[in-house]
């Protein structure tokens, strides 16, 4: 996705803020919506949110840095989340994560240099029966292996929006 133009940040943030009153309890939902639309929480957006809720911008930053779901920097074009829940872990989740790091040549939490892939860990997506799990752009892949990493990447690259499962249940 890369860096976003200032006008886009301004417009998208304004769009979200129109949906919410200035009550303090709206802080987290606003952050969620802005993050959903922009992919991350730019500084300018947080300043606008603070104005809208009439709170100090530091409080916005404080909440934004507390939760796993909020990013402060632009994400990759595709987001790969490797599940690190207990079931995934005991079925080799760490090896899966390391395989992704090697394949994408990026550390977990980072974005590849070409901006194509962001690699993240996720606490548990509650899909433990199908462990180990990898979630790519919101498509859940079950029973993954280190060897399936390449196939998922090829799929993501080939078909940007129409991604198939790799669980051996496909064609």
């Amino acid at each position: 996705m890369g860096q976003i133009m200032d006008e886009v940040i301004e417009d998208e943030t304004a769009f979200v803020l129109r949906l919410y009153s200035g009550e303090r309890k709206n802080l987290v939902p606003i952050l969620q919506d802005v993050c959903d639309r922009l992919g991350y929480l730019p500084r300018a957006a947080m300043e606008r949110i603070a104005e809208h809720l009439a709170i100090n911008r530091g409080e916005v930053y404080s909440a934004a840095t507390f939760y796993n779901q909020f990013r402060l920097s632009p994400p990759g074009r595709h987001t790969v989340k490797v599940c690190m829940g207990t079931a995934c872990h005991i079925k080799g989740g760490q090896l899966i994560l390391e395989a992704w790091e090697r394949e994408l040549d990026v550390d977990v939490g980072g974005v590849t240099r070409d901006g194509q892939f962001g690699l993240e860990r996720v606490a548990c997506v509650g899909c433990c029966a199908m462990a180990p799990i990898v979630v790519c752009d919101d498509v859940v892949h079950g029973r993954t292996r280190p060897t399936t990493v390449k196939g998922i990447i090829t799929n993501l690259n080939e078909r940007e929006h129409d991604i198939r499962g790799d669980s051996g249940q496909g064609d």
Partner: protein
Amino acid sequence: MIFEEIRDRAIREWEGLRNSGRPLILIGTATCGRAAGAMEVLERIERELGERGIDADVVQVGCMGHCYAEPLIAIAKPGYPPILYGYVTQGTASQLIENFILGDDPCLEFALGALEENELIPTIFDMPRFRYERRILLERCGFIDPQNIDHYIANGGYSALVKALEMTSDEVIEGVRRSGLRGRGGAGFPTGEKFGICREAEGEPKYLICNGDEGDPGAFMDRAILESDPQSVIEGMTIAAYAVGALHGYIYVRAEYPLAVERVRFALRQAEGLGLLGQDILGSGFSFGIELVRGSGAFVCGEETALIASIEGGRGVPHPRPPFPATSGLWGKPTLINNVKTLSIIPHIISKGADWYSSIGTEKSKGTAVFALAGKVINTGLAEVPMGTTLRDIIYGVGGGIPGGKRFKAVQIGGPSGGFLPESMPDIPVDFDSLTEAGVMMGSGGMVILDEDNCMVEAARYLLDFTQRESCGKCTMCRLGTKQMLNILEDITNGEGRLEDLGLLMELAQDVRDGSLCGLGRTAPNPVLTSLSYFRDEYEAHIIEKRCPALVCEKLISYYILPERCERSCDACVGSCSVEAIYAGKGGVKVIDQEKCVKCGICLDSCPPQYSAIVKLSPLSLVPPEEKKPEKSEEGDG
């Protein structure tokens, strides 16, 4: 509209679907099903039905709990009993359409069983697991369309609310109290008593929160219920709100469950549309609204005071208790906060009575418990058993035992707040008090089964790593205590531990348990305490022998190719290695360059089973010294 009209219409719709004369295909599209490819199967079914002009109904349902066999579809064709099929691929879906929907062959080779008694094939309820299971909360899951409130109503839904609204709130509370229900979030506080405290508490307005922040890794019961039967949670919340006098409710669903969020949001709109939620519910004069709140990814928000802080609009940081939320919670007002399962059982208790409920379970733990079985167990998925069922019956009876003939080693129960129960305790009854006595915790009901290939020290390290990452950072004991415990565990799994570390680890674990501010910190040491008491020998092997008995800890194991087993002309391992650490040595025998090896284990998978030449060795000293790899002229290019 009066409820009888709503119900009659719902029943007509439901019966219409079942007795339409057309084939009915149910497909499980909860998250587990999707991970196994259910959406692709659904796409294929709809495409083929369309292309062939077949008149059949396709309904997306939730999770039946047989996650091991996902994707699951059930076909009800006139003239046949409804049949459940497992492990359905796009190919089998096509075959079922071709041979069963169009033909007369029900393809029993793909069937798990029928869903009703019949003379053709056994039902799934004849499976051995159903000798142990008793499904109350999960009864409708996977059998109704979670996005269709009529399915819920036609199957008994909302009649408990109607009944409750005719009772006084005291009668409702008394019923819950007499049922013996204890909170399913983990601590097991008597639910009726909590209702009573909140009811009596001074302060208006009162709030109700449904805690759907199922953060325990390895637990997915709440997700399954929210995705499969969301109306049961809404009905339970409404009854509870009526009992305590709350006018406004929140249902807090964790961010990692996008499908649950979507389905709950939809279900709320449907309930409001029928007047089962909102102003003057069913003309009773009682009003109650529910707002959906999405979590943002913080395990600590499962802790009730942190969850409240998060809803109020800031960091999800816990406060000291007392005051408990029941007297001073959201915005300082009395707030009833209960787990998803606790609330969704309420309609059953109201409908069938407190005596019925209290007849299930043990003396002090009433009712059923829903467990999520995952890890090294054959039947991964959901199980609902009466409280007091033994661990053995759950793992072997319901779970079908350990796959691959491996030895059962331990069960991780209750997530990072729980602990490990060893194989030596198979007959422990699983209920609140027996588990607490054994040093673990019921938690919300996640059970991850570990076999001989899992290292207990590494498993404890994993859980501490989890809590350490998820600590909110407010209090010293948890913020730094979990970090220091993790340091010690990392030393041990890296082969750098010292025996005296075990004493320090134990001391620290006890102090973090006794001295932390909130439940996260107070229970974080449980995995360490239980693994130390039941598996101390494994800790000692890591420390004294630098050996990982389960061959897991990367720093203590080597991958090694047994020369006498290596086929020599086969190159499978060489090709599989992502870091080019395997080369052909003398006579073509493959050798692993230990310095290059990243221990990913891919070569072990790739070595054809008839050779099985690759093994893991621990300690490292077991690997014989290798001839040096022949120096080639290629310069390292990075």
